[in-house]
């Protein structure tokens, strides 16, 4: 118990350090002391504008997005009792992407700033409703996976269709870039748009820890321990949909975070799925903050996309885990 408390404290400290680093690193090359002073005191000058309107929302969004993906991934893996589960499995992120793509294609996103994220939220919401109708109150975890795969396949196909028929090459390239996922050029509007959904999603998922722990013994045994699996599944689907839908809407698709972070932290929490929820949320926030800093440092003038970097870093990490699992299995 004490060790678990320490782990959370360490992860929180890591997030705090990376958050500060994210505020201090950027193309404007501002000196650290002055920029912090400009952030807090606020002199109305350019520096305050950069700090308050560009870097602060970007860092906050990194925490929200990473925390959401980490938490949603840990909850999905715990519920499905499968270390390969990830938040995208439910098809909510794919549907959010479809909404965003339609907004770009129709030119709506150029008409006003929030059109794109709002369209993505609508897409995510529709997917969640469809998912709950298909697999909400009845059927086991397998029904949920099948419904999720069906929805995400359909959303993927429709996204391809839009790209396929797009008469406008600029819109098509906009769509491609958006889908890579990025935190660049986001404002507090984006923060306020996704914050309520993220808080609601976290509030739904965090109390599931005992139920997810009990599921370690299988669905039958968990139910005999007084866990209502129907309620657990409803909360899980709603919570993951809120988190993933809202964060995909403001950043695009950021892959591998929800898959890799719970994996890395599992051993540190003694493999208990309930404890993995808060640990993975903090770990996800740290990973996205770090990746977003790296994006700015590696190719400062080329707009390297966040989702591309997390995939490039995440895939080898995952391979490393494969080798470790193989060693332990032998």
């Amino acid at each position, binding site marked *: 118990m004490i060790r678990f408390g320490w782990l959370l404290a360490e992860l929180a400290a890591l997030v705090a350090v990376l958050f500060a680093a994210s505020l201090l690193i950027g193309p404007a090359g501002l000196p650290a002391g002055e920029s912090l002073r400009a952030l807090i005191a606020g002199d109305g000058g350019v520096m305050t504008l950069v700090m308050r309107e560009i870097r602060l929302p970007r860092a906050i969004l990194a925490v929200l997005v990473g925390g959401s993906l980490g938490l949603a991934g840990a909850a999905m893996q715990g519920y499905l*009792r499968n270390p390969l589960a990830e938040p995208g499995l439910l098809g909510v992120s794919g549907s959010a992407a479809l909404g965003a793509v339609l907004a770009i294609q129709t030119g709506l996103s150029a008409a006003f700033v929030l059109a794109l994220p709002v369209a993505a939220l609508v897409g995510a919401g529709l997917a969640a409703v469809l998912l709950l109708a298909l697999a909400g109150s009845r059927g086991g975890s397998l029904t949920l996976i099948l419904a999720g795969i069906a929805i995400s396949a359909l959303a993927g196909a429709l996204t391809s269709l839009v790209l396929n028929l797009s008469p406008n090459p600029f819109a098509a390239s906009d769509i491609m870039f958006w889908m890579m996922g990025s935190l660049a050029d986001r404002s507090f509007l984006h923060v306020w748009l996704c914050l309520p959904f993220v808080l609601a999603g976290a509030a739904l998922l965090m109390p599931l820890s005992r139920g997810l722990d009990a599921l370690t*013994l*299988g669905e039958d045994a968990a139910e*005999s321990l*007084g866990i209502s699996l129907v309620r657990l599944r409803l909360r899980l689907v709603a919570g993951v949909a809120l988190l993933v839908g809202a964060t995909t809407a403001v950043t695009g698709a950021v892959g591998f975070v929800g898959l890799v972070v719970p994996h890395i932290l599992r051993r540190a929490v003694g493999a208990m799925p309930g404890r993995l929820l808060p640990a993975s949320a903090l770990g996800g926030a740290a990973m996205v903050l770090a990746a977003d800093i790296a994006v700015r440092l590696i190719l400062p003038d080329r707009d390297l996309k966040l989702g591309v970097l997390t995939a490039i870093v995440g895939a080898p990490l995952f391979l490393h885990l494969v080798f470790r699992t193989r060693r332990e299995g032998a």
Partner: protein
Amino acid sequence: MTLLTLEDLTVRRGPCPVVEGASLSVAGGEVVGLVGPNGAGKTSLMRATLGLLPHDGRSSLAELPPRARARQVAWLPQAREIAWPVTVERLIALGRVPHGRRAGPADAQIIDAAIARMDLDAYRYRTATHLSGGEQARVLLARALAQGTPLLIADEPIAGLDPAHQIATMEVFAGLATEGVGTVVSIHDLGLAARFCTRLVLMDRGRIVADGRPLEVLTPERLADVFGITAWAADTPEGPVLQPMTLSRRPR
């Protein structure tokens, strides 16, 4: 004290009933062996009793709200599932889930007692998923014991155990009975069932066909009829002894 009452319990899978009109009551201090050939409906009867399967008729346990039921009865499913590489101690502690939020000293005491009872002290900090199948079975039974309920329902708890641990496990049930705990176990080993159960319930094709003292239930006629076997049986000073001998017909 009656811990469980079934009245005319019927379970359907599709149109055909897998359990039909089962009535039964179990009191504290009993070790009730549920016997019958494969597909007789033993698991379905137990799961419906617990409210895990839709059913007609009445089960006193299924009527309880989930939390209250979890404090009344512990369930050990046949599938020995351990999804994550947690320690044996943590896994057993999951038995305390129905007993409120924070684990206190009373919980620790019950967990220790369950570990001692299943002779798992040496395994306490081992990773549960790295243990052998038989060891995992004992850990999962200890988890059910840690639930601290007056009734325990276990689906084939001794399948796959070595002879010493089969006997030790049956003795655990007998020991629980002296403390007033009731146990319902499905079991295929008729010899151990006859020896350790205070009462046997025989099922065949979804129906309860006999209910009573072991050798009164396992008569030569019923053994031939239900199981298609002959057996050597005797009431010895050491208790009832039953040894299955030959097939009386081809198994169906």
